[in-house]
């Protein structure tokens, strides 16, 4: 029995997401992961865009048309918010890695700061883009 310590009976799995009420801490945690996965797709699109530019105007035109379409604009707006949320959430994680800000009050202050900063930066980025003739 000593050689089969984990196969004798199934261990309980954590987290049991469905029995917990969503909180700012848990929602931001899973959003950091979801935005990370979404931004992986954005990284692939960046390479598609670069390859299209390298291949010439004929290859670039449909990619630019997709970006300029309203679906492309909505996706790009979502990607902008995902980027800023992951950036701000990531900086919050880097601060935690220095063993600072673990008090419950600090965690909620930094959490709402991440949400507010991401919204402000997303709106500011698109306002700046529009003001530059976009």
């Amino acid at each position, binding site marked *: 029995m000593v050689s089969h310590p984990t196969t004798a009976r199934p261990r309980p799995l954590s987290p049991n997401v469905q029995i917990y009420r969503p909180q700012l801490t848990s929602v931001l945690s899973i959003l950091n992961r979801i935005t990370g996965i979404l*931004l992986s797709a954005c990284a692939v699109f960046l390479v598609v865009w670069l390859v299209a*530019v390298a291949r010439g105007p004929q290859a670039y035109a449909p990619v630019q048309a997709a970006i300029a379409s309203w679906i492309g604009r909505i996706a790009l707006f979502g990607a902008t918010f995902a980027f800023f949320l992951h950036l701000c959430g990531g900086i919050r994680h880097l601060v935690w890695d220095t063993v600072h800000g673990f008090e419950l009050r600090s965690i909620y202050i930094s959490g709402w700061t991440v949400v507010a900063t991401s919204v402000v930066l997303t709106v500011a980025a698109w306002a700046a883009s529009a003001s530059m003739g976009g």
Partner: protein
Amino acid sequence: MDPQNMQSTRSPLARAIGLGSAKEGVGPWWAERVSAVALVPLTLWFAASTIAHIDSDYATVIVWLKMPLTAVMMILLLIALFYHTALGLQVVIEDYVHSATKFAAVIAVRLGCCAFVTAGIVAIVRITLSSSE
């Protein structure tokens, strides 16, 4: 099959080496942080540049991408971005996939990231070396 059932004659230490952190777990963790710090200025530069070029025509984009600073920043961005992506996706896979497909998925993510970063760098080099009309 579960390696623990296949190799029941091995000592607990022999089983643990290579399965757990075994003094190597901190490496990817640290690399994820280093790439994250590098990505803060690189992605902010990229966001600011994209804001300025979102509706530029082909000729303007080419002029911007042919600037040496743009090429250097873009290559650094691609390397840090796909390094961070590979490490991040590996953590996600390790958290949710608990079968033989875990190994295959991690390898697929790593190879995919290598392929995309190479394709991106080659594209930058092609743009840099292309003759300006």
